[in-house]
């Protein structure tokens, strides 16, 4: 049975928000200072609320999918469609900030597109989320600037974090199964390919302003990566290499792009532990309300 492509799209959006929200929530009590405990806790709360709105929309549109708790907590790992980057452990502050920056920039690109979706309920949610995501992006941008313009250690950690996160961040724009039908019907007003191009061009421009665009340069030959365990990535031989390149003063991606599989339910080893933690209570007490 093939899945309605709209369902895959909504699950991808919701699962990205849920899983990265879960990672953000792991900073609660552990962030470098109190303001960041509050910031990451608040961002996590927003992201999980957005996931909840999307799960609710899914449950209303396809009643067989069940209600929001079942969707958030009652699925098996291969049923989650989040991009692999979202499930990676927080590692350290430089990676955390780099990932948040890359993620929220990507989220801004796709929400801007989805705000014009022909699926009006989804467009409504995208417009609502945009207003809250603005603060997340502001947070990430402030930290990127602070680290990039600060002492060399912090700048280096940010650069290391960006280098580690960028190959997997590209896969936030992994094409969805049956994407042409979504684009054709206006549900997805821009293709993943177009959004990836927009994201990369704007990212390149912002990084150039901080003299950090060399982290993109280093990914020129890297190409597409597939997940293994935490922090390890192996090149995906059978997949096309997206590559990045500076053309006429603008960063572009090259070649077709198949993604690393998150949208099809393929996850890294890191997902298993996250899933155990996230869903343990729900699985231990089926039907519990809280």
């Amino acid at each position, binding site marked *: 049975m093939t899945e309605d492509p709209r369902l895959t799209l909504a699950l991808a959006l919701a699962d990205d928000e849920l899983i990265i929200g879960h990672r953000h929530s792991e900073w609660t009590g552990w962030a470098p200072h109190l303001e960041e405990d509050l910031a990451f806790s608040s961002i996590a709360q*927003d992201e999980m609320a957005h996931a*909840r709105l999307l799960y609710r929309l899914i449950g209303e549109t396809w009643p067989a999918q069940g209600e929001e708790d079942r969707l958030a907590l009652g699925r098996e790992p291969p049923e989650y469609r989040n991009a692999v980057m979202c499930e990676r452990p927080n590692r350290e502050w430089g990676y955390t900030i780099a990932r948040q920056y890359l993620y929220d920039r990507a989220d801004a690109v796709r929400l801007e597109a989805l705000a014009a979706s022909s699926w009006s309920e989804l467009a409504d949610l995208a417009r609502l989320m945009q207003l809250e*995501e603005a603060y997340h*992006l502001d947070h990430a941008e*402030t930290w990127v600037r602070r680290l990039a313009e600060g002492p060399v250690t912090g700048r280096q950690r940010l650069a290391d974090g960006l280098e580690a996160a960028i190959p997997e961040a590209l896969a936030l724009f992994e094409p969805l199964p049956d994407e042409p039908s979504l684009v054709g019907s206006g549900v997805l007003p821009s293709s993943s390919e177009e959004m990836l191009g927009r*994201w990369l*061009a704007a990212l390149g421009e*912002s990084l150039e302003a*901080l003299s950090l665009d060399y982290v993109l340069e280093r990914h020129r030959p890297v190409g597409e990566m597939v997940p293994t365990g935490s922090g390890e990535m192996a090149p995906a031989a059978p997949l096309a290499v997206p590559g990045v390149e500076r053309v006429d003063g603008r960063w572009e991606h090259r070649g077709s792009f198949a993604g690393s599989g998150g949208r099809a339910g393929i996850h890294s080893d890191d997902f298993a532990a996250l899933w155990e933690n996230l869903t343990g209570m729900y699985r231990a007490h089926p039907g519990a309300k809280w």
Partner: protein
Amino acid sequence: MVRQTDELPAVDDEARVRAALRNVHDPEIPPLSIVDLGIVERVDVADDAVQVTLLPTFAGCPALDVIREDVIAAIGHAAGGRRVDVRFAASPPWTSDRITPAGREALRSHGLTPPSGEAPAATGGPIPIRLGSAPERARCPFCGSDDTVRESAFGPTLCRSTHFCNACRNPFEAFKPKLGRG
């Protein structure tokens, strides 16, 4: 129940429900009624039910369930025995310019600076790099000074940011601006 007139009874009842809603306050900001907060989007009175449509300030606001219970309790009498449904809608999104002047005064009385200035833009385009980053300057609710710095866009609740006043040396909180674009 006995209706006093057959003419537009629902309109009178709607007015009564709306008046009763003024007694429901934001549980996190007690002086502020949900009407002045601008979250009451619709009141629909039918023969057998009253439906109140509210707009969450922030989607993840944990006070929503409390507000729902408070609304049901507050309008029970005005609803005249009808069933009361409270629903939260995602569209249109709530924006901070829906807070009424009385609501802004209530925020100030609670030591919270009303929303002002620009909300950050969330576009997919390049982000201008602002060297030295001008933090949002919220007016101090205690001494009225504008010589303040934003410590963080986040605070004890989703709708508040945290600030420090250089003039009276007090930390304070502001209600975040949330504004649609275009």
